[in-house]
Every structure is written in C-alpha cells, then in structure tokens.
C-alpha cells in the first residue's frame, strides 16, 4: 500500500517526460526539416549562380566585348617574343 503512491508518482512523471521529449523531438525535427530545405535552397541558388557565371563568361559574349568595347585584338606575329625556350 505504501509503495503504490510513489510508484504512481513515478509513472505520472515518466509519462509527462515522454510527452515533453516527444514534443521536443518534433520541434527539433521541424527545425531540421527547415534547415534541410534551406540547404537544398542554397544548393539550387548555387547552381543558378554557376549558370549565371557561365552565361556571363560565355566566349560568344566576351569576344565582341573584348574586340569592340575594349579594342583588343590577337597579337600579330611581329609582336610576339617567345622566351625561355632555349632555341
């Protein structure tokens, strides 16, 4: 008879503990999900930035800019000196 009261208390406390732990776990899981979604989102953004980079760095775009806006051209043969070949 004496034993029952503490046992009931322990059971109730443990049950409450389970509820709290469950709640905590769900909260953390939701947070984990959000973090994962964010990671995915960032990965997507990285891909888009890479795409943008290769679009901007496309040679079809750079060549006219180099030639027309910056006035660059290939070196003519007379303007190239080969160094360090020891011939």
């Amino acid at each position: 008879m004496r034993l029952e009261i503490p046992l009931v208390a322990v059971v109730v406390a443990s049950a409450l503990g389970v509820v709290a732990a469950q709640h905590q776990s769900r909260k953390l899981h939701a947070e984990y999900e959000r973090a994962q979604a964010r990671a995915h989102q960032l990965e997507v953004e990285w891909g888009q930035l890479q795409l943008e980079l290769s679009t901007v760095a496309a040679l079809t775009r750079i060549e006219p800019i180099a030639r027309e806006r910056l006035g660059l051209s290939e070196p003519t043969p007379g303007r190239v000196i080969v160094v360090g070949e020891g011939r």
Partner: protein
Amino acid sequence: MNKRRTARPHNPLLESSLQTWRARLVLVLLLTGSLVLVARAAWLQGFNHETLQAKGEQRFARVVPIPASRGRITDRHGDILAVSTPVRAIWAAPREAQFEPAEARKLAALLGMDVEALNRLLSSTRDRIYLHRQVAPDVARRIAELRLPGIGQDQAYKRFYPGGEVWAHVLGFTNIDDRGQEGMELAFDSRLRGEPGARRVIRDRRGEIIEEVGSIRAPRDGEDVALSIDKQIQFIAHTALRQAMTEHQAAAGAVVVLDVRSGELLALVNAPTFNPNNRSTLSGAQLRNRAITDLYEPGSTMKPFIGALAMEMRRVTPDTLIDTEGGRMTIGRATISDVRNHGKLTVSQVIEKSSNIGTARIALQMDPQDMWNMFSSLGLGVPLELGFPGAAGGLLRPASSWRPIEQATMSYGHGLSTTLMHMARAYLVFARDGDLLPLSLLRTETPPEGRRVFSVATARAMREVLEKAAGPQGTAPRARVTGYRVAGKTGTAHKVEAGRYTDKYVSSFVGFAPASDPRIVVAVMIDEPAAGQHFGGAVAAPVFSRVTEASLRALGVAPDAPLVPLHLAETEQTPRGKM
C-alpha cells in the same frame, strides 16, 4: 415483507412467480453482448492492429519525394556546359478549379497564356492536367500566393545550356522530363540521371513535417560528366566554321580537333547548328552531328595512307618515280584523271600535288587484301566507340569484291565512305609515330594504349610529305600558320546522290601541328561550297589554318617556326582573318 405488502394495494402481477429462464436469458444476452465487445476489442487491438495503424497513419503520414538533380556536364576545365535548375510544374484539377474570372486572368498572366487558353484547359474532363511544365520559382511562388482551389505545383527541372549553339551537337538536349534525347545527354543518360528518393513522414495539421517514419528510397543525384572538350578551342572551331559557312555559302560543315597525345576530342562543331535553349524551330538538318553520323567519301585525304602502306611494304620510297601518264589513265573500261598533267612525280610529290593517277598506280602494286587490312586497322567501316548516339561506321566492302578500278578509286578516297571523325582519328597514326588511339569524349587522366598501324619510320616519312603538301608547293598553302609548322592533306570529293556522282563537292582538310612534335589533329569538312571555289585547298584549308593557329596558342604550345608573317600575297585573295 408482510408489512409492506399490506401497505400497498394488492398487485396480482407480483403474485405470479416469474419464470426463472427469463432472467437467465437477459443475463446470457448481456454476457454475450459484452463478450462480443471484448472479442471485437481484442481483434482490433491484437490481430488487426496493423491495418488500423496504417489507416491512422494515412491521415497524417505522407510519402514525400526527395528530389534528385541531373548531373552537370562540364568541359575539361570544369566550366559548366549543361545544368539543371529546379522549376515548378503547375497543374490543375479541373473539377475543383472553380474561381472568379478576375483570378483566372491573374493566373493566366502569371503563366504567360491567354485567358481563353487557360479556360479551355480548365474545361478539360481529365482529373489532372498540366498548365505549364516549367515555371520559374519566383513566378511559382506568386501563383501559390493566389491560393486558388484545384491548382497545385510539382517539383520539376529545366536544363540550361549556357554555351548555346556552340555546344549544341556535342551536348544534345533533354526532354521535358529531364531525360537525354540527343548527344551526350542521351549517350550518358544513365550516369547523368538522378534517381529521386522517397520517404514517409508525419505531418501535423499545419502541414509541417514533425517526424520521419522511415526512408523508402534514398535519392541519388546524377553524376557530373566532364567532357574532354576544351571550351576555348570549341569556340575557336565554331567561329572559324561559321565564317567559312558564310564565305562559301556552304550547305553544311564540321570541324574536329583531337589531342594527339591522349586521343581526347578537344572540339567538335557542326553547321548548321541550333540553340538548345530554344528548340521551337528545330529541323533535322540542324540536329545532325555530321562529324560523327554523316558518311562522305573522303577523297584525297585518303592518299597518304596508300603512300604509307606502300612504303611500309617496301614497294616504294618517298623518292620512287611514278609516271602519271599525262593526266589520264584507263583501267578496264573506266578512265581516271588528274586535274592537270603532272608528268613524272616522286611518291612524295604524288601526295603533295594530290595526283589521282599516281596514287592509283601505287595502289595497284599492292594486293587488295593488304589495302583492306590497312583500312580496317585504321578503324574504317566500323562505328567509333564514343558511345555517341547514331555513330556511323561507313562503308568498306570486303577486298575479295574489289575490281581493279575500285581498288584504284579507293586509293584516292572514292568508292568507300566514312565519317570526318574516322578520318581525324586515322591521321593520329601520322601525328603519333604510327600508332592509333581510341578516341574519347570524356576527360581521361591516363592516355590509352595505342595500336600500331605503321612503323615509326614510315609515319615520320609521311609526316614530312604531309608538311610539304601543306607547304607552298603543295595543294594547300593556305593551311599554313604563322609560328607553327603544319602538315596535312586536302580532299575534294564529288558527292554521291542516288548512286551517281554529281557536280556538288565535299571539301575537306585533315592535318596536324606542330609538325615537329604534333599536338593536335584538326579535320575540316565543308559540304557543298557554292560560292565558286570547291577545292579543299581553297575552302577547308583556311579553316584548318585559323583553328590550328588559335588552338595551339590557346594550348600554350611553343612555336616551332619563326614568328614572321606568312607571305601569302600570291595565293590569298582575301586578307587573313583575325582568328
């Protein structure tokens, strides 16, 4: 008891004694009732709990897909050539999609379609229809914010090709489901493709995932594929080919650049081309990867192999004199001819001047089977193992069926057909001291093992001959490049249409540079040049020159010739291009 009985009025009903079976019946009925309940509870809890649990889970548990992305394609330096980015597919369940005309207008505007077109889609009797398969993520978010009933979204991917038309034939493209349809996208589809995963989760009533019950399938992202092709050289080849296409009003063309040391493809371009990002006006002619799928008669580019075989079999040396018989020669009932009468030529000059008769006379000294063996060991007649879809092998008939006239014409590249890629690869034997490598479209770390076709001495001797062929006395002085010694051979072949030779030509040039220590093989083919010139030396050789010069510079190859301007004034009608 008696007292109570006296206090109340007499009730005869109570007098009559109840039959005891009635009480028992009630008791039994109650007991059976509760037993049934207990049994039912035990059944639900003990035996049938799995289906019930599953049903309960169904209310909250959902299987959600885990998206996997398709692998990227990069060039040999890791620059992105094809990448999949997520988009949203917008779908509608027409039965539930009932909303105000104003809302429909908003939705139509976001989807970029007419309201009528949208209404037509929504009046469909199907359960679910796609309104738009590829909507940008920000637009999709605004559609979601409209909160329209019966409108949903799925995850989808769209493939982008930042290189556009420069890479169109190499890369190919994917369809709406992100599956490869052409080119590398198709050839390496199984590697590039990702396998979406799935997992079972429990959502709360706000739709937020609160617990993962289990993973059904782990997702597998597609592998990235690194091509052997060099972005810069690809662009160089594309620009040079495009320029030649307009200059000569040609129907089509292709350029292939190979790395001599590893057998890797450094460039592969075709014309006409297309923009893989916008394929609404695509024709079959634009789609063809001519360098790999189209057969042509290689013409004179075949001659060096005959010369090399004759040298290898010690029938001739480069200095053996051959009588070209005044420019005409009759074999059986057929006559073959040269462009002009060359008189007596050495074997070396036969190739430099590209004499059909000279080559035929060299070839006729040999057994057809030996020639067939050589063609076959060069890989002609068999599709290249590039893994590329639609790769053609070419036509090489068995030697036993050759008549003498056919043996003669085959020696100068008529009567057998092959692809430009085969010819480019075959020239590796001269560029590489006599051995042949398998080609690769993927970046390789260690060069593959070569297979010997000619001896080192023969290959080197032919290299010298080919350098002269691309020199001032040869057929292609316009193949020359400032700063580098080049070697190569022109080809001009009549096109065969419906089994007859026509007055249309295929002009080609296959060569390599620097001649002192070859690094690249460049093969050029221009189909049906229509602006007056049709000889390989005038049409294809200048393309070779442009591509070779710029490519060697891009690769940082040290010049092996003095850097002085070429004096091409007597052979060049047009000033040299900038490339």
